[in-house]
């Protein structure tokens, strides 16, 4: 298979020699303008990308290798033109809804055990942030079926998926999964199902029908009450191995920093004013002509602005039931209700016989129970 251009489905190596992947017309390019600033551009000869760094005619990008540093045609500044990946797409996509970010996407993809050939169902599609990563996981032989309640968003997603080349393995459908469940045609086909809906508990039964044995259901719910309701439904519908986690991506800032070691010298400009942002450190450890009492060091500290909660992720597995399991369960329930006394009688007989044999006597279980020595004055509140 040759290099797939303009899509972000495959992390292909460079087909040309010497490690270069060249930009062609209609390719999707992620233009990196600086730290944490990037935008998507579809290469169309005649168009020009304009930013605060200057003007970048698309025509000039054709034939250039992905990763190149490009100076603006008006010479003002520069940008890097990068090949798209699902992770970069998540940074630059158009937000039609709240989206999932890289850490949650990574965990979801992996906990659902996706691999080339897997079938995965998603609802809702939203802005397609997760969908792209799912498509990468299951390509080239798997399938992502994604469902969205809002028709406008369905149309937008469809177009995007085609342009980004993930339509090869992805189908987006307009459907209200909470009301209608997943299509019957997909029954017992899914290796995994992902739900990001206000009422995931409403479609757990449908998910159970759609999953293969040992398939994984993942729900994404911001509020804990929702998680609770969903877990109740999961337990009712044959799921086990249920766990709820949350994952924060704590981003760190990295900076070079001058720290003073001499307490007799006044605090210098370098040390007083907080961080020296983005100041370059001389290569190869050559020290600047700063005072000898300044120690320069690289430090990493967590960013203050933090996405401190996204959602609770709940994972559960559909346990393949043995044949006649429903009948077995019913029988068990009956036994445990009626069989209790019978069992205790048998046990008492067994014990009496054994105690007789061993010539050891112990207080009988039917002896009057002694009150606990620890009298609880307020038993309603302080039960053990």
């Amino acid at each position, binding site marked *: 298979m040759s290099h*797939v251009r303009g899509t972000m489905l*495959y*992390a*292909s*190596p*460079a087909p040309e*020699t*010497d*490690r270069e992947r060249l930009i062609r017309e209609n390719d999707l390019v992620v233009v990196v303008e600086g*730290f944490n600033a990037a935008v998507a551009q579809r290469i169309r000869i005649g168009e020009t990308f304009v930013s605060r760094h200057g003007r970048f005619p698309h025509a*000039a990008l054709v034939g*250039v290798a*992905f990763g*190149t*540093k490009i*100076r603006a045609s008006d010479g003002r500044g520069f940008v*890097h033109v*990068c090949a798209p990946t699902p992770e970069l797409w998540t*940074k630059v996509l158009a937000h039609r809804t709240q989206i999932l970010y*890289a850490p949650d996407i990574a965990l979801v*993809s*992996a906990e659902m*055990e996706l691999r*080339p*050939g897997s079938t995965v169902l998603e609802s809702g599609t939203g802005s397609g942030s997760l969908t792209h*990563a799912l498509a*990468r*996981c299951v390509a*080239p*032989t*798997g*399938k992502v079926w994604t469902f969205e309640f809002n028709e406008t968003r369905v149309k937008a997603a469809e177009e995007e998926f085609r342009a980004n080349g993930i339509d090869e393995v992805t189908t987006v459908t307009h459907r209200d999964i909470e009301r209608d469940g997943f299509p019957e045609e997909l029954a017992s*086909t899914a*290796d995994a199902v992902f739900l990001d809906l206000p009422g995931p508990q409403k479609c757990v039964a449908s998910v159970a029908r759609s999953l293969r*044995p*040992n*398939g994984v259901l993942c729900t994404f719910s911001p509020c804990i009450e929702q998680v609770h309701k969903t877990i109740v439904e999961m*337990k009712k519908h044959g799921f*086990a191995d249920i*766990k709820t*986690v949350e*994952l*924060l*991506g*704590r981003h760190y800032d*990295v900076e*070079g920093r001058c720290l003073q070691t001499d307490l007799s010298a006044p605090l210098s400009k370098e040390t007083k004013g907080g961080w020296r942002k983005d100041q370059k450190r001389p290569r190869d450890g050559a020290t600047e002509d700063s005072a000898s009492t300044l120690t320069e060091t690289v430090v990493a500290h967590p960013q203050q602005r933090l996405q401190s909660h996204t959602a609770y992720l709940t994972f559960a597995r559909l*346990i393949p*039931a*043995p044949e006649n399991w429903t009948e077995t*369960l019913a029988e068990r329930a009956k036994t445990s209700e009626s*069989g209790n006394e019978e*069992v205790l009688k048998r046990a008492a007989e*067994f*014990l009496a016989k054994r105690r007789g044999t061993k010539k050891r006597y112990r207080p009988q*279980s039917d002896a009057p129970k*002694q009150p606990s020595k*620890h009298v609880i004055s307020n038993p309603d509140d302080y*039960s*053990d």
Partner: protein
Amino acid sequence: MAPEGERATEAAAERSSGKPETTASERVHAGRAMRENDVVLLEMNDGERATFATLRAGKVIDLGKRARAPAEAFLGAPFGSMYEARHNTGEVERIGATTEVINEETDDEEAFAAPLADERSNKNVPNTEHGAQTLTDSEIAALKREFTGEEMVEIIAAYSKTFEEKTAFAQEKYKARKLKKHMTKILARFPSPRVVCEQYFYENPSKTSYMRFDSLSMLMNMANVGAHGQTLVLETCGGLVLGSIMHRMGGFGRICNGFVGTNPTGMEVVQNMNFDPTHYDSVRHASLSGLIEARQKGAVEADTTRAKSMETTEPSTAEKKERVYMKMKFANDGDMSDFTQHGFSSLVIASLSVEPKAVLEQLLPLCASSASFAVWFNASQPLAEAYYYLRNSNLAVNLSLVEPFLRSQQVLPGRTHPVMTTDAGSGGFILSGTYVGGVNTNTPIEANKKPKREENS
């Protein structure tokens, strides 16, 4: 190594056939039947303990705590099946999802007050349970030979002096605890990277360098590991990271397991993941210094490369044994030249033995332009130094240093809170970015004053 084109055709054929995705999915899905020679992770009592077992007909598997099961109990059933091992009879019976039906609607005072007292170490009354049992240990042992696990629980409760004084909630909890003691519930897990990673992380973490599963998942995604890629991996996590890459790429594309020194480090963990030959065939071992040398010499001077790669294909006997078992080959000349000519589309580094900055400096030039890379370490500082170096030398953009902070949550009526203690206090840190130092040509609008080449070598 199977030619790329062949597999691609196969894939295309599948896509155009009637129910292609089902077929493909059928082949890989984790709920397929357990077969002879499969590895299965048998997890007892919701994670109380677990063991990897290779299923061979006639073999008896030790489940720990004196429980055993014949391999036949599992063969033919789907992965993911659940079992009960009865201690009184030695039987292993396949069951469905959990039989305990908790009344989740109960949200009364009791459900609030009782568990609180309970969880916070019986803060309000001294523990009276100890010594409250009127049956002797030997009596209990004798009874166990006659009664099932569930029956034992009823008997033990009836002979407890304090059982009736407990609240309904505490009685329930008491019974559940006793049931665990007298009956073992087994979950037969498919050994996916997630399952294998967690098993090592909690049971034998030094083997996988304390790689936590969320971090592993971020390594895969941030390095853009996927089908048809060409991935370079340097890991000393026992093969866990390599296995995860193999799983993600599914035999489509190529993986170079780069090693430090003259021999690959142990990759035993890969063996637990039930990979088929296609997966193994997509991997080549290669010496990292050999790759670097081959890259510097270029394709035209392949002689030295050959010499180097020959040298690295003479492993020790122990090494050979493992290599054969793992069905993974060392890179030959053609592979080396392919790797260096096309460059890697993804670079993954996960080792506590090497310095991230130095390694990135040497390995990034092996990557294709705009390749994705991700580096894991269990402390932030070495990654921060690498980050600072990459930013200041303009070798990478989209740089990000992230600490995944993972927390498990207990969700129960009236008792919902994050888990109280964990052995997963750190998942380490991940540095990721896009390599932009690999461009040779000076385009008309190229900004750099000196050729990139110089910077990367």
